[in-house]
């Protein structure tokens, strides 16, 4: 299983921070968003927003990057600390 992580307001839309996704083959981040779109268009459109960054296993990647089973894909909306 791959792990999807939704931070900030994306977690509200996803109904939780973490979600598991079974992958039989490597998929791009864009493909994963496409899968989510089939069941949750609101979340998928929020994930595809330009200001949302992606990280696979803790490294920032672009939408073409591939995710495999056992990987962790995080969706990072604009950050705010301090």
């Amino acid at each position, binding site marked *: 299983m791959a792990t999807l*992580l939704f*931070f*900030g*307001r994306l*977690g*509200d839309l996803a109904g939780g*921070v973490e979600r598991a996704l079974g992958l039989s083959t490597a998929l791009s981040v864009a493909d994963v968003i496409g899968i989510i779109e089939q069941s949750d268009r609101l979340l998928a459109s929020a994930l595809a927003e330009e200001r949302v960054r992606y*990280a696979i296993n*803790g490294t920032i990647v672009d939408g073409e990057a591939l995710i495999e089973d056992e990987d962790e894909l*995080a969706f*990072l*909306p*604009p*950050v*705010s*600390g*301090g």
Partner: protein
Amino acid sequence: MRERIRIASAPFDPEEEMVRFRAQLADAGAVVSFLGLVRARNAAGAVTALSLQHYPGMTERDIGDALNEAASRWALEAALVIHRIGDLAPAEPIVLVATASKHRRAAFEAADFLMDHLKCRALFWKCETGEGGRSWIEPRTDDYADAARWDG
């Protein structure tokens, strides 16, 4: 440079942390610290709670990178970053940054740089609850402009 990063899920005591920070110094002539507190009001009215999220592992690595950059730009003897996560109440300490150097300028600038990084580049997500309802906070335009001062 001695450095310490602590992501705290429970309240921390800034005074105790500063005593500990100073105790390790051998040759510093300047210590600068910044303490951020949860504001009791925002534009919509009273704030009752603040909740902070981070990405375990990645958040710490990113702050480590920012500390490395600070160490390469300024002659620092030590630097400390403590950042709260979880649920916070108004007036509670949310962030403590401390820097130590031989002379004051390096410590001032490095603390300023680290705070700008923590405000709008480090991996934290902040949700405010209050009179205006519940909302995820984004940095202000000024925060982004402050952080951009150190680029290039």
